[in-house]
């Protein structure tokens, strides 16, 4: 008998220190339908998914599987009930082969002994469905492109016989043929009666794939219904909660002096066309492109955290040595993409994180001056609107938005000339997002040169004076400020016709 609800949530609430991720969300997916789960970063999609798949337990509320209320203790329990997730963070193990990765957790075996031929057949079949039929099963997964790793992740889910398949932004790293292969496999899975939860930020996909739509915002459910009722405008309006234009303050015009000159830069270890660009004081230049198109790598190279490669970088006409120390001294600093890994020392108090880059300024002869440290933190707290219980609170305990402000704050302590921002609003709730936008605009207005990479197109377009579009490591477009450039940029980034 086919259940009415393949997978659902009832009044699910979940809080983390400093942030309420979900507040009483009720959600249901029917068998055989593709259900698009939409919302901005930080809207609570990922948390909802983690609860639905047993990776986290809700503070209150229940999970429903096949019309039955269940409580999952671990992902194993969810998998056992036929709920198969494909997470946004890749869980492909880079040291293992494609075969092992695809079959991980669902090996075909008899009394614990692998049945090699069956393993290969299953893996091969799953790979064929995601258009990777030609891939050698013995390839080490870490050697594959990110797109292929994502497809392997999906193939892993296909190997299982699942009633519900949850895909968390599977299209983020895919394009062209690969994207189409993904779409066709999603359609065929749904046709077999499997419920599909599909999370995406490419709104086009909603039109192409979804049968139903649910929109989340700030941890609450905005609306849910058949996809036909959701034209693009409605989705955007419900996701953002206000008119898009009003979110982004107008940037002040840039000045004339050139701060950063990059000539013929080829990042180390990359085989791509050289990049040249100029950045003026007070200018915000957006970097757009798919994940893996080389935006992050360029920023890291400029920041001196991964060596240089070929080409020259000059700050105010003075060539820059390719070392981290020299780069920071020259006033070129990076707010990294992986905030928790590269940006913060989570178990240090926020005030110490804030002054980590400028230890000299708060110390005399190596002696930390507590008063100066407090003052430094208070200044940034005021300037950036950091909401923390006090300077002694651990960075770990802050919400994503405030953590991000701390990372920006620690770099403001060294009074940089060039600020490199990599995904500055990832995992940040909507309120904090607009504050960060305000901060960015203000910094530029005060003369700082800013390079901003983001996978959220509206953000890049809304903030920047001009947008550089990346594809395969090369700049394929330089588009002046234009609120309607989204489509043009997408085409450039995907390499489809303009």
């Amino acid at each position, binding site marked *: 008998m086919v259940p009415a609800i393949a997978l659902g949530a009832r009044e699910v609430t979940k809080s983390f220190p400093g942030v309420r991720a979900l507040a009483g969300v009720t959600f249901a997916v029917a068998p055989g339908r593709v259900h698009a789960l939409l919302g901005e970063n930080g809207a609570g999609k990922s948390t909802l998914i983690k609860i639905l798949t047993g990776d986290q337990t809700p503070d209150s509320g229940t999970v429903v599987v096949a019309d039955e209320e269940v409580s999952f203790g671990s992902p194993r329990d969810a998998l056992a009930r036929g709920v198969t997730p494909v997470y946004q963070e890749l869980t492909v193990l880079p040291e293992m082969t494609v075969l092992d990765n695809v079959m991980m957790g669902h090996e075909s075996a008899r009394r614990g002994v692998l049945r090699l031929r069956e393993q290969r057949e299953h893996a091969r079949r799953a790979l064929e469905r995601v258009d990777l039929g030609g891939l050698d099963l013995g390839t080490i997964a870490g050697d594959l492109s990110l797109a292929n790793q994502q497809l392997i992740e999906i193939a892993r889910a296909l190997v299982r016989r699942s009633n519900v398949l949850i895909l968390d932004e599977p299209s983020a790293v895919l394009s062209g043929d690969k994207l189409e292969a993904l779409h066709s496999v999603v359609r065929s899975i749904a046709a077999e009666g499997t419920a599909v939860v599909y999370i995406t930020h490419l709104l086009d996909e909603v039109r192409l794939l979804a049968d139903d739509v649910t929109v989340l915002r700030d941890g609450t459910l905005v609306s849910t219904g058949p996809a036909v009722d959701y034209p693009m405008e409605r989705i955007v309006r419900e996701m953002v909660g206000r008119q898009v234009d009003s979110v982004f303050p107008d940037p002040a015009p840039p000045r004339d002096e050139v701060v950063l000159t990059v000539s013929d830069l080829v990042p180390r270890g990359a085989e791509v066309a050289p990049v040249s660009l100029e950045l003026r004081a007070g200018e915000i230049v957006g970097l757009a492109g798919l994940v893996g198109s080389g935006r992050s790598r360029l920023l890291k190279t400029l920041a001196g955290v991964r060596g240089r490669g070929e080409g020259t970088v000059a700050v105010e006409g003075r060539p820059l040595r390719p070392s981290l120390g020299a780069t920071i001294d020259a006033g070129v600093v990076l707010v*990294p993409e992986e905030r928790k*890994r590269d940006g913060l020392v989570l178990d240090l108090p926020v005030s110490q994180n804030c002054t980590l880059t400028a230890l*000299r300024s708060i110390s005399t002869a*190596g002696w930390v001056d507590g008063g100066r440290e407090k003052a430094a933190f208070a200044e940034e707290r005021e300037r950036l609107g950091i909401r923390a219980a006090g300077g002694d609170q651990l960075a770990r305990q802050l919400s994503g938005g405030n953590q991000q402000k701390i990372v920006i704050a620690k770099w403001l302590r060294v009074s940089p000339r060039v600020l490199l921002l990599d995904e500055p609003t990832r995992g940040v709730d909507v309120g904090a997002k607009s504050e960060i936008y305000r901060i960015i605009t203000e910094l530029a207005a005060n003369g700082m040169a800013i390079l901003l990479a983001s996978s959220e197109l509206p953000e890049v377009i809304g903030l920047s004076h001009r947008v550089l579009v990346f594809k395969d490591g090369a700049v394929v477009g330089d588009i002046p400020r234009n609120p309607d450039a989204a489509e043009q940029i997408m085409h450039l980034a995907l390499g489809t016709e303009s």
Partner: protein
Amino acid sequence: MTAAPAAPTRAPSARLARISGVVAPLTGLVLVLVLAAVTTPQFYSLEVARLVMFQIGLIGIAALGQTLVLLVGGIDLSISGVMALTSVVLATYSAGSDSRLLVGVVLAVLAGLAVGLVNAGLVVLRNVPPFVATFASFVLIQGVIIAWTRGAPSGNIPDALGWLGGGRIWEIPVPLVVFAVLALVAGIALGRTTAGRRVYSTGLNREAARMSGIRTGIVIASCYILSSLAGVLAGLINSSFIGFVDAALVRSLDLDSIAAAVIGGIALTGGKGRISQTVLGVVLLAALLTWLIQLGAGGGAQLVVSGGVILLAVFLQNRGLGLLSPRARTTRATPRKGKQ
């Protein structure tokens, strides 16, 4: 004992964590002292107190170096090797003559520096797991000593050094005084200086620290070098304590220093723990070991008790104050930060 110098955190929750970190070793210490009072009354004599104090000094100095290395996520298994090397270098060069003491000590320090540099080079430049790197240099030191002395170190430790191991200041053994001073210095340096900040942030998150402009390689290397220098000092104390060259590699000091730090609550993953905790761990371990000897327990019992105490200490720290809190389950789910 030295007052807990400058905690890195002062928020309410941080204070709670701080207190709970000390509760376990403190309870252990009280337990040992009570047991000692019941079973071996002579434990509370001046002589035994002095023995405990000497042990605290010797283990403690090694444990200070070990703590530094642990704080940057490493481990040092070569401390006892450095101790033996110190003894041999000093004895061979000075041959018991006071006039050559100073140069002998300088040479020993240089030897210690060399070992520290080898450790640091392997760990920082070659990314060798610290555990393996320092063990390899331990084997190398052993080889160097035997090859150089042809197996039979000759010479003597100058008498002028005798006060370091055997002297007393107001009835307090000099090693304890040295340890107390060093612990105070280390505690203040870690808690109140920029160097301390660099050590903690490197240990907690090397990548974030590096990207904040901290030269983590130099920070880590310094910790290994300081640890080796602590080994030199422990070696000087040990050799002046007896006055004869003792090339026997006192292997137990490596494990004792790690055990003391761990019992006190220094995390092996790096960045967590304060010198005051190490001091507490050292005091507990020294009291425990001395009590066991007083009790007449054999080597077997001493090992069993040490092992049990280490397991218990870490168990309690993992649990925090609530004995049956479900924290273990959640910590298990988080990906472990490897041992490098």
